[in-house]
C-alpha cells in the first residue's frame, strides 16, 4: 500500500474514534464538517467595541463604477415600445396599467423618475459613485436620473411615518455564505433590503411595481488578475400585486479609476 493511502486510512480510522471526535470538538473544528448555510451577521465585536460596517467591509466598494450592458440591451439602453413585456411575469392588473402607459402624462404629472426607482435602477445604463459618509451608512449616487440611495447598517430603523420615495429606505448588512459568519470576514457579500418605495416602473415602457414591493439585493465583488474590479448585483423584487413571481435581475459593474466620466442627467420618460 502506498504511503498516501496508509495516511488516508489512518485519518479515516481516527476520525471514527472517540479520541478523534473529542479532538475535533475541543479544537472547534467540528463545524467544518457541517454544511454551510447563509447566516446574517451585523457588524459587531465579541465583547469589545462594535466593529463598524465600514471597518467590516470585505471589499472596497467605494469609488466610481460603470454599468456594463451585455444583456437585455434593447430593453435597457433605449425605452422599448409600448407592450413589450418579454421576460416579466406580470399579472393582468399590471398589463392593464402598462397598456395605458403615456410618457407625456408622466411628464405632466412630474413622474419622469418612475423608471429610476430603486426597484430597477441598478439595471439602468449608468455610473455609480459610492462613498461612506460615516462608518455605518453607505451612500450610492447614480448619475442617470441623478438619484441617491443610502444603505443603513447596524440597528438603524426607519422613522415611523416617513413618506415613500423613489429610492425607499434600505437596510444593509454584510451577509455571510457560511454558518459561522465570524470564521472568514472576507467571505461576505453586501445584502440590501429596501421598502417604502414610491410606485415605479420595472421597465421604462410603463410596466409597474407597486408601493408594497420589497427589494432584496445581493452585491458580489471580484478582482481579475489584471487588478480590474467587478461588482455583480443580483436584485429580487417581490410584488404580489403586479408580479406572478419575484422579478430577478442582474447588473454588472466595473470599477473606474476616477469620476472623469461621471455625468448626472435628469430623469426622462422618453430616453
Amino acid at each position, binding site marked *: 500500500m502506498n504511503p498516501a493511502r496508509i495516511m488516508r486510512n489512518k485519518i479515516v480510522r481516527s476520525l471514527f474514534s472517540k479520541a478523534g471526535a473529542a479532538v475535533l470538538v475541543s479544537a472547534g473544528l467540528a463545524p467544518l464538517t457541517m454544511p454551510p448555510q447563509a447566516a446574517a451577521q451585523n457588524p459587531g465585536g465579541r465583547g469589545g467595541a462594535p466593529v463598524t460596517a465600514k471597518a467590516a467591509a470585505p471589499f472596497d466598494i467605494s469609488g466610481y463604477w460603470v454599468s456594463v450592458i451585455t444583456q437585455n440591451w*434593447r430593453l435597457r439602453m433605449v425605452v422599448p415600445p409600448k407592450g413589450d413585456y*418579454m421576460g416579466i411575469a406580470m399579472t393582468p392588473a399590471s398589463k392593464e396599467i402598462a397598456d395605458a402607459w403615456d410618457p407625456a402624462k408622466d411628464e405632466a404629472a412630474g413622474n419622469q423618475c418612475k423608471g429610476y426607482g430603486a426597484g430597477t435602477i441598478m439595471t439602468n445604463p449608468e455610473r455609480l459613485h459610492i462613498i461612506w459618509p460615516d462608518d455605518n451608512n453607505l451612500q450610492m449616487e447614480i448619475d442617470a436620473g441623478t438619484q441617491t440611495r443610502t444603505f443603513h447598517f447596524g440597528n438603524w430603523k426607519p422613522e415611523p411615518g416617513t413618506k415613500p420615495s423613489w429610492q425607499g429606505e434600505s437596510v444593509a448588512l454584510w451577509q455571510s*455564505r457560511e454558518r459561522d459568519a465570524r470564521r472568514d470576514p472576507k467571505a461576505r457579500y453586501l445584502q440590501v433590503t429596501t421598502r417604502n418605495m414610491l410606485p415605479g416602473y420595472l421597465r421604462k415602457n410603463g410596466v409597474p411595481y407597486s408601493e408594497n414591493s420589497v427589494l432584496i439585493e445581493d452585491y458580489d465583488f471580484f478582482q481579475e488578475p489584471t487588478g480590474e474590479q467587478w461588482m455583480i448585483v443580483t436584485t429580487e423584487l417581490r410584488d404580489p400585486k403586479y408580479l406572478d413571481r419575484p422579478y430577478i435581475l442582474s447588473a454588472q459593474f466595473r470599477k473606474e479609476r476616477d469620476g472623469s466620466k461621471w455625468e448626472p442627467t435628469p430623469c426622462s420618460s422618453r430616453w
Partner: protein
Amino acid sequence: MTKSALLALLALSAASVPSFAQIDLSGSWFPYNESDALSNSPGPRPLPLDFLGIPFNKYGQERGLLYSPSYMSVPERICAGYPPHYLVVGPHGVKIWNEMEPLTGTTVAWHINGWEDRAPTTIWMDERPHPSENAPHPPGGFVTGKWEGDVLVAYTTHMEAGLVRRSGAFLSDQATMTARFFRHGDTLTVTARIDDPYYLTEPYYLTRLFKQDSVASIHAVPPPCVQGDEGVPEGAVPHYMPGNNQFIGELTRKYHIPEEAYMGGAETMYPEFRKKIKDKYTIPDKCPNDCGGPGKFGLRNQ
C-alpha cells in the same frame, strides 16, 4: 490524546484551510431568465444579427453576418450542441452535484448536467493541468475549478466554436470562459467572463440567475436530442454571402435600433454610447412581436 487523533487533527487542519469557505452548490437550480429575456427565454429567439452589447471585432461581425438561422437545421448541427458558455446563454435550469473521493470526502469534481443541446460539464477540482493546445475540443470543453474564498471559479478551455447568442453571434474554438458561482441562500448567480482572441476586442461578461428547486425537477440525465431531416438538401450549408444577409436592418425596421448599435462592438456596452444614438432613436409605436405578457412568460419551465 492518542497519536492517531493528533494525526487526524493535523491532517484535517491542513486539508481544511482551503475548504473552509467552500460552499455547497449541489442541487437542482431553476432558471430565472429575466436578465437576458431576449436571449435566454425559451421559444422566441433574438432577432438575427442582434449583436447588441457584444464586444465583437470586425471578424466576429463578419462571421455573424454569414449566419442563416437555417444553419442549425443541417443534420450535423441539430444535435451538435452549443459550447460550454451555453450555461449562461441557454434557457435551461441546471443540476449540480459533487463527486467525492470515497475515503476523505474531498470533492474531486463538480458536475453540471447537460441539456438536449448542451454537453454536461465536469469541473475538475484536483489541480490537474489543462491538456495540450493540440488536444481535441470536446463539446463540454475542459474545465478546472478552484475556490476564491466562498466563490467557485471554473476555467474552461478547449471549447468548440459555436453560438454565444442565438442571433448568429459565433465565438471561435479558441475562446475561454471563467465562470464564477456566487451562492446567496437559495439564489445562485453565475457570472462568466468569455475571452476570444479571434472575435472579441475585450472580455464579454454575462450573468445568469437560478433559484434552488426543492422538488428536484431538473434531471441529471438530459432529454435526448433527436436528429432529423429539416429539409436542408444534403451537402448544403445554409448561409449568406458577405453583404447579402436578408436580416441586415431587421432591428432597425422592427425596433428602430440604429445599425451602429448592433454593429458597434465593445463601445455599445457602456452608458455613454447612448449619446451616439439619442437623436436617431424613436420609440416604436407598439411591440412588433414576441411581446410576452400575463401567462406568456415562458413557453417551458427549464
